[in-house]
């Protein structure tokens, strides 16, 4: 024998070969299970990333605003009735916004901070006019929140001086092209003439019609908020920690702080139920694989009962016997997960070929994430070993005399 195989390996491999049919069947089971887990996990995480990207690509993860103005009443405590009408919310700046922005920037997990002045206005050209959302931003800072260059159809994202960037729908409505002039008017009659520096298509018709970007200074003067800003946009590293970060900032500043998780509650619950169903499927597949391995090994121990007795009589310790079956379970898991990873890769590539987005791009890419593969393999190995524990212990505890007599 060229290779010096330790006892447990030698016996285990021989048993696997002897029970070819069992080995093949259980390997097919583990392979299928691991493939399903890897395939589903990869698919769902890719789809989630693309959904999140589509939805959150055009919005800030966290928005800090001035608190809503509320009525302060001085009614006597024993008063029984009062009619309190909610106050009209006039445009208000964020108090001390510069220090709030600095605080936000220093908060762990926050990647980018962008102050914005926004309010209602009209865009007018010749006889045509459209109501728009005026958004005064710092071009560099804002591009860290929303990747505007990605969405630009024409021109560039330049809001310096009296340049403005508008959406493609507004450009259509008003017949504008890059370089054309456009008048922006606010409710109290302030207005100015702008030239269109860029036209964007953010993938949402309504936003393409409503969003008009200018510089902060210009927006401040148009909206009569000198030196003030109306909201601070944040981008965070961990999307799903956005809510916690928002709560923390709210507690620190006393301002209204909303995360995307609140403003897109439905998306969040859809993502959550997707993840949950994925976890459920993974759980059940894992349980089924474990039960499969365990049952094959239980049968194997019963079949080999006599041989186990002989080995014990020849001096094999209970631990040696146990290791034979543990190894068998571990091998089922390990080999099954290697094959399963291959199958998952094939499935994913197949799926990437047959499914397309509306724009013809691939819905998923046929690549496996190493971490998913490694964790699935570790899971399969662990499950294999764990499933083998009971049968292996049973084998180890066989009384040699009884076992041989069978």
């Amino acid at each position, binding site marked *: 024998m060229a290779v010096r195989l330790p006892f447990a390996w030698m016996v285990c491999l021989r048993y696997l070969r002897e029970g070819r049919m069992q080995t093949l069947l259980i390997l097919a089971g583990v392979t299928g299970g691991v493939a399903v887990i890897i395939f589903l996990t990869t698919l769902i995480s890719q789809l989630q990333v693309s959904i999140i990207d589509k939805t959150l690509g055009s919005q800030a993860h966290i928005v800090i605003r001035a608190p809503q103005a509320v009525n302060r009443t001085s009614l006597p405590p024993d008063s029984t009735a009062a009619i309190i009408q909610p106050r009209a919310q006039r445009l208000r700046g964020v108090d001390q916004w510069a220090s709030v922005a600095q605080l936000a920037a220093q908060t762990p997990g926050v990647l980018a901070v962008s102050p914005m002045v926004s309010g209602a206005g009209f865009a007018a050209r010749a006889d045509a006019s459209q109501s728009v959302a005026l958004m005064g931003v710092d071009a560099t800072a804002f591009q860290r929140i929303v990747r505007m260059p990605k969405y630009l159809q024409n021109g560039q994202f330049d809001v310096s001086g009296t340049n403005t960037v508008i959406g493609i729908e507004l450009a259509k409505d008003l017949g504008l092209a890059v370089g054309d002039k456009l008048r922006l008017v606010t409710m109290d009659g302030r207005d100015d003439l702008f030239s269109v520096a860029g036209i964007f298509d953010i993938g949402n018709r309504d936003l393409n019609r409503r969003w008009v970007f200018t510089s902060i200074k210009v927006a401040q003067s148009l909206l009569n908020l000198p030196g003030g800003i109306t909201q601070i946009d944040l981008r965070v590293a961990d999307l799903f920690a956005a809510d916690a970060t928002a709560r923390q900032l709210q507690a620190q500043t006393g301002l209204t702080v909303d995360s995307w998780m609140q403003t897109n509650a439905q998306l969040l619950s859809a993502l959550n139920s997707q993840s949950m169903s994925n976890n459920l499927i993974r759980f059940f597949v894992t349980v089924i694989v474990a039960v499969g391995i365990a049952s094959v090994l239980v049968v194997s121990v019963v079949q080999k009962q006599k*041989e186990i007795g002989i080995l014990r009589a020849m*001096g094999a*310790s*209970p*631990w040696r016997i146990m290791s034979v079956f543990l190894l068998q379970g571990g091998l089922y898991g390990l080999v099954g997960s290697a094959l399963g990873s291959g199958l998952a890769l094939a499935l994913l590539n197949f799926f990437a070929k047959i499914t397309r987005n509306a724009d013809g791009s691939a819905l998923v890419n046929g690549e496996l994430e190493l971490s998913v593969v490694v964790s699935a393999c570790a899971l399969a190995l662990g499950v294999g070993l764990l499933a083998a524990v009971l049968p292996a212990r049973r084998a180890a505890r066989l009384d*040699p005399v009884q076992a041989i007599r069978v």
Partner: protein
Amino acid sequence: MTSIIELHQIRKSYGMGTPVVTEVLHGIDLSIREGEFAALTGPSGSGKSTLLNLIGLLEKPTSGQILVGGQDTEGLDDAAVTALRGRAIGFIFQFHHLLPGFTALENVMMPSIIDAGWPTTAAKEAALRLLEQVGLKDAADKRPSQLSGGMQQRVAVARALSLSPRLILADEPTGNLDTHSANDIFELLQSVNQQQQSACLIVTHDPALASRCARQIQIVDGQLVPAPGLS
């Protein structure tokens, strides 16, 4: 000559903790000496197999003392007893009990593989020599199912010899064979006993075989009785 194994006042009961306790062995004193060739005879149900299992350290006595090479086995844990058994004692069973998935050579090597943890070249050479000794050199790569009953039992003898145990326990090694093969096996055991100086204890029903052994131990109803021709 020194004793390989000594039994002092061995009692063995089955069904302990149940209303029906059956004592199978009633205080056995026995010692097997180095290089001895002994037969253990007795009618069915007399406790032969139980006694053999106790000597082979496969079972533990209910009371009494078993010394192997002067060492008391009382209180040894399972792993220690297993290791002692593996090295000191070779078994030959009535039905060959070879491992069906392994070749004759691998079966013979198995005790040394178990002992060393892996197969060594030396173990392979030793196993080949043993197969040659039992006249089965050419059958080294055959599976047990490809061998006749007599050949299987010879492989089993070779296997029992593989760690050069000081004691070979044979439980009716010829019980399952025709007269000719039975005689072969018996003579093989005799030659092993003479060449290797391993003590042999052979359980047998056959008075003719028993009479050819140097020492005869007879057990009746769980007690040793003086046998005719006791040396």
